[in-house]
């Protein structure tokens, strides 16, 4: 129980141990610990972020799906409308075409009738002249009577 130099020796030893601990022991351990803490915190926040991202992505995907459905519905609608229009238009065209053909046919018939009538008239005129010649027993000077004949033909 004597107080002696051990006192000073112990103080020196203590000082050296503290110095060593401050310099070489404490920093690497606490750095590793805080680095690990940071790593874990980062991991957790990354997981949080990922689940949030997933939620967002799911929301976005369902939105996209909805949009696609709407678009396709609109497209089908449009296509239907367009088809109906085309059908309507082609019907119209066909009708017009038919009318035109009928009109043309009518015109041709008219023309042919006129021609036939003209031909008939000319023939009738010729027959009439021939008849008249027979009746008169003399030839009719076609030139001299052409005016009269034409008149006759027009009256027929």
């Amino acid at each position, binding site marked *: 129980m004597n107080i002696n130099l051990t006192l000073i020796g112990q103080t020196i030893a203590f000082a050296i141990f503290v110095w060593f601990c401050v310099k*070489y022991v404490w920093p690497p351990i606490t750095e590793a610990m805080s680095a690990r803490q940071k790593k874990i915190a980062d991991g957790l926040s990354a997981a949080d972020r990922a689940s949030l991202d997933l939620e967002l992505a799911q929301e976005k995907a369902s939105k996209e799906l909805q949009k696609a459905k709407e678009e396709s519905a609109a497209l089908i609608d449009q296509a239907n409308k367009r088809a109906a229009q085309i059908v309507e238009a082609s019907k119209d065209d066909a009708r017009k075409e038919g009318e035109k053909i009928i009109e043309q046919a009518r015109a041709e018939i008219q023309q042919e009738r006129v021609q036939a009538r003209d031909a008939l008239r000319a023939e009738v005129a010729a027959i009439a002249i021939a008849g008249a010649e027979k009746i008169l027993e003399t030839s009719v000077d076609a030139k001299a009577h052409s005016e009269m004949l034409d008149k006759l033909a027009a009256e027929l």
Partner: protein
Amino acid sequence: MAADTPVEYIKHHLTNLTYGKLPEGYERADGTVVEEATWTMARTGQEAADMGFMAIHVDTMGWSIAMGLLFLGLFRFVAKRATTDTPSGVQNFVEMTVEFVQGIVRDVFHGRNPLIAPLALTLFVWIFLMNTLKLIPVDYIPSIAHAMGLEYFKIVPTTDPNGTFGIAIGVFLLILFYSFKVKGAGGFAKELSFTPFNHWSLVPFNLILEVLALIIKPISLALRLFGNMYAGEVIFILIALLPFWIQWTLNVPWAIFHLLVITLQAFIFTTLAVVYLSAAHEDH
């Protein structure tokens, strides 16, 4: 063993292995007279006492340094291969201790000083290891030392007042250093003079009170640790005087109880040292 009676046995176990300077003309225990002042190993407690201040307790120094090296070696070993991945067993243990000490410092210390936490770690683990030596049965190491020709051998450095006061002085010097550094010489003098009573006529009273309070700090640190460890050691030695077949009924419970005391005393010393250093950092 150089102990025949119980009193001698106890005295023997409480005497350190002392290497010191015997004065000129000193008559040694065996009757020889030292011709001139010599450095030698004390052969009796009386010789150790007569060596005065110029002596050193080889056992205290040896074991405390060994425990300090054990602490630093283990922690340095872990520090060098500290990984940020899943820590292995010994790293877990070291990190647990570091976190425990960080907790103490965070709760108690309010300044900013990177020295305090490692200081607290050193104090806690080192004192804990030195205290733990007490759990080695009291006769083992002294018997081995005796067989090697060493008369006295007391292995627990914290049962030596030199050991605990040495550490406390280290803490006290740090308290003084930081008081001067943080508050400045004037601020520190002002704090000693004008607290607790802020009036000029009470300056002498304040000074006496505050200087006493300051000096009490290392003394209370050292004596608390020393007293607890010394008392526990004496009880172990007393138990060791009983017949060997009955000793376990007493020393097993006492040792189990001491597991608590050892940890608690290391914890108290560390916490109080941090509290005192925190007070030294507070600038009013």
